[in-house]
């Protein structure tokens, strides 16, 4: 009788773990999570408030934070979403499906293999946090060493929540066989979840808000933990966090949801090739072609297939053209390349997803009740929209710039594009401008939505200049800087996934620094929490914006210097390593 380790499920599971072990992303995530655990431990609120860094309250609180922020829901999509798509992309699907591997074994092996890798990455946070009990800071309160709370809360809050998220991404990726669907879902996680919190969970009785929260945001919440800032540290440090029945039901429902999704995948999954929508192109036959053939065949009698020889007079004359050079040509090439970028953006239907998201976010940024506002309701609404769109725009810029910068390589058109005499600046700036314009388009849509929502809420007059001022001074330079930064990152790292991880890590790290008080305009180029409407037109702020634009320019110059047209044919070997073909 075969043991579990000899089954096809185990083989698929092991293979997924081995493949992930060859990828860079899991290691980057491990380092990122572990370093965040160090940051949260040493420079988190515990030190200032006197909370014990290994109190059950603080452990549970940090696990909740870790599960939601730091982009973990997005990373879950990146690790789990394309598990099956990868086999089709690499063309190994016929080799796998021609073997006696059951559908259940294959799908479960794929899912659990990747989920196991994800949990290993996530556990870097919990393990680091656990080990830090032995290295206390001065003035830091540390209770006697404890073990169970770390693993209990990690499992309850992080693992189970991400199990259901992973199942959603896996189902979407496997059934559509389109990685972009997974990325779209991942990118829309935050706006969707926040909107769900605000629209649904906030307005239902507490028991339902606990039961219906897929991420378990309210699991473990209750009593003193609701408002820790007004509770004494001694009380919190002695608190034992336990879960109630409704909270267990919530966690159980996540597991059931995951199982249901996997069942759906099991029944709906098909291994046949995806039917591509092909054009009804004309089949040309040789009998139609001879009029256009002017072949002066060789005279060696070596031809292995007869080719009709026609006089050269039948050739189609190719008109002589003039090739131009110089800045005007470069500008023209840049605009043309930008046009192609927009054409491709439109074809990918990405805008169809992004536009409603921008509208939803902007709509909910309008204060729907009378409240004291700093200057006017327009200023409050425009400020809220700017802040609300910031994270959304950052995600859009990071993901779309990555797509745009690496698309040519992925569709294998890069060697042809790079063998043209167009300068590097045309390629770089066209992408930079296309993504910047996309960002601006979303800002305009967001601004208009907010104005309309404000008008219909009756908070008139709508002050257009406030929207213009806030977006013009704060948001637009921010978009320009973020795009330039991600362009430079993609040029330097030459790998879009590395660039994603680096951008998200740097962004999360900076926001964390800002939130704990290390906030200075020299390294906060988005001016997050550093501006007031009254100061927007005054010198220090305008100077900071010039600094931001100069920084963007510097990043673009850096990208230009390091941009290399170096083509090499690379492919993946069976172990998933990138190898360079010697052919």
């Amino acid at each position, binding site marked *: 009788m075969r043991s579990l380790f000899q089954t096809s499920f185990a083989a698929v599971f092991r293979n997924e773990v081995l493949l992930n072990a060859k990828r860079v992303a899991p290691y980057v995530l491990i380092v990122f999570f572990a370093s965040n655990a160090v940051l949260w431990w040493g420079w988190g609120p515990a030190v200032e408030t006197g909370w014990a860094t290994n109190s059950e309250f603080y452990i549970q609180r940090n696990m909740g934070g870790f599960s939601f922020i730091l982009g973990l829901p997005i990373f879950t999509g990146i690790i789990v979403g394309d598990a099956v798509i990868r086999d089709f992309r690499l063309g190994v699907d016929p080799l796998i499906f021609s073997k006696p591997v059951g559908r259940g074994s294959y799908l479960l092996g794929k899912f659990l293999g990747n989920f196991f890798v994800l949990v290993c990455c996530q556990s870097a946070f919990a393990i680091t946090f656990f080990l830090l009990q032995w290295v206390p800071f001065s003035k830091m309160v540390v209770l006697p060493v404890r073990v169970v709370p770390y693993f209990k809360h990690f499992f309850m809050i992080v693992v189970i929540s991400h199990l259901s998220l992973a199942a959603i991404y896996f189902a979407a990726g496997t059934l559509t066989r389109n990685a972009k669907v997974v990325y779209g879902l991942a990118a829309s996680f935050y706006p969707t979840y926040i909107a769900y919190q605000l629209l649904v969970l906030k307005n239902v009785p507490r028991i339902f808000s606990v039961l219906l929260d897929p991420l378990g945001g309210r699991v473990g919440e209750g009593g003193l933990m609701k408002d820790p800032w007004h509770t004494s540290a001694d009380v919190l440090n002695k608190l034992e966090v336990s879960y109630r029945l409704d909270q267990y039901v919530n966690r159980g429902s996540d597991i059931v949801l995951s199982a249901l999704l996997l069942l759906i995948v099991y029944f709906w999954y098909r291994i046949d090739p995806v039917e*591509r929508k*092909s*054009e009804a*192109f*004309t089949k*040309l*036959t040789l009998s139609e*072609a001879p009029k*256009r053939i002017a*072949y*002066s*065949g*060789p005279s*060696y009698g*070596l*031809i*292995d*297939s007869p*080719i*009709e020889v026609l006089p050269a007079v039948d*050739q*189609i*004359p*190719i*008109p*002589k*053209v*003039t*090739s*131009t*050079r110089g800045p*005007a*040509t470069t500008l023209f*090439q840049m605009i*043309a*390349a930008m046009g*192609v970028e927009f*054409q*491709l953006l439109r*074809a990918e239907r990405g805008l169809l997803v992004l536009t409603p998201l921008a509208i939803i976010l902007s709509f909910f940024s309008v204060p729907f009740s009378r409240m004291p506002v700093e200057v006017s309701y327009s200023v409050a609404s425009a400020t809220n929209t700017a802040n609300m769109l910031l994270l959304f725009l950052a995600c859009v810029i990071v993901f779309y710039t990555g797509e745009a910068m690496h698309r040519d390589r992925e*569709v*294998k*058109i890069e*060697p*042809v*594009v*790079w*063998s*043209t*005499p*167009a300068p590097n600046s*045309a390629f770089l700036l066209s992408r930079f401008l296309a993504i910047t314009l996309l960002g601006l388009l979303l800002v305009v849509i967001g601004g208009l939505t907010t104005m309309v929502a404000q008008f219909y809420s009756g908070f008139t007059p709508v002050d257009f200049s406030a929207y213009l001022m806030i977006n013009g001074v704060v948001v637009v330079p921010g978009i320009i800087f973020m795009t330039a930064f991600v362009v430079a990152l993609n040029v330097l790292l030459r790998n879009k996934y590395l660039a994603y991880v680096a951008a998200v890590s740097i962004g999360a790290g900076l926001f964390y620094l800002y939130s704990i008080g290390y906030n200075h305009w020299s390294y906060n180029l988005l001016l997050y929490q550093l501006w007031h409407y009254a100061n927007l037109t005054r010198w220090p702020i305008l100077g900071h914006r010039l600094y931001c634009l100069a920084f963007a320019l510097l990043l673009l110059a850096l990208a230009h210097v390091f941009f290399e*047209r*170096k*083509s090499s*044919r690379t492919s993946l070997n069976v172990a998933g390593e990138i*190898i360079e*073909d*010697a*052919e």
Partner: protein
Amino acid sequence: MQLRIDHLSKTYPNGTRALDDVSLAIAPGMFGLLGPNGAGKSTLMRIVATLQEPEAGSVSLGEIDVLRDKEAVRRTLGYLPQEFGVYPKVTAEDLLDHFAVLKGITDRAERRRLVTALLEQTNLQRDRAKQLGGFSGGMRQRFGIAVALLGDPRLIIVDEPTAGLDPEERNRFHNLISETGTENTVVILSTHIVSDVSNLCSRMAIIRQGKILSACTPRQAVDELKGSVWEGTVPREHFIPFKSQFNVISSRTFDGQARLRVIAKGQRPSEEFAPATPVLEDYYFDLVNRQD
């Protein structure tokens, strides 16, 4: 305009010596670069197409130093790589127009005339408004040729163009590529299919393990073997002893017997063998066998 390649060497980080002191002089016309998979053909093509750097050696196209003045080469280069992709959602006409802009052809009227002529030339005029994602392999390859012909190139590089094409499309491709060579244009056809070279090229080189084994005309290559090629059938069990005794360049099992092609200068290998007309494949296999 002549393409000169002098002492070119390239080693990959994994230690593979892709090019080992390669030197070639290629005059205008169709030049075939023949070699098995992994011989170094594509590496050589990518270096000449300014997309890769060698460790040593030089390449010049007329007065242009290919390794230094890349922009000048790109202005006069038409390149169809081995693996050539397209934006699937863009039409043939739009993408060809885009490449024309990248080539520096900024005048709209000129560009339109050129694009129309090239689509005509490659028999894609009727499909000009169709998205490239719906093109067959052969149509895509013809589109690649149209891209390579943009802007009156003086150096055209086509890398493994017929791999994966059905016989009809391959024939069509041969016709098309043979039209491109003018008296001022260097056309390099890199392939592992011997008949592609014998059908199209006036000069050729054989490359293997990064080294040039031979550079001559196909006629010279075939003439070298005149009177030396024999073909015959022997029982299968005699094949191994026969192979150790003679230079067997190809063997095929047919109806339980081994049908062999042998090179034996001046002597008939055995009674079962009759003289055969040499073809370029014989020269290629003979050369490769000798290296082994």
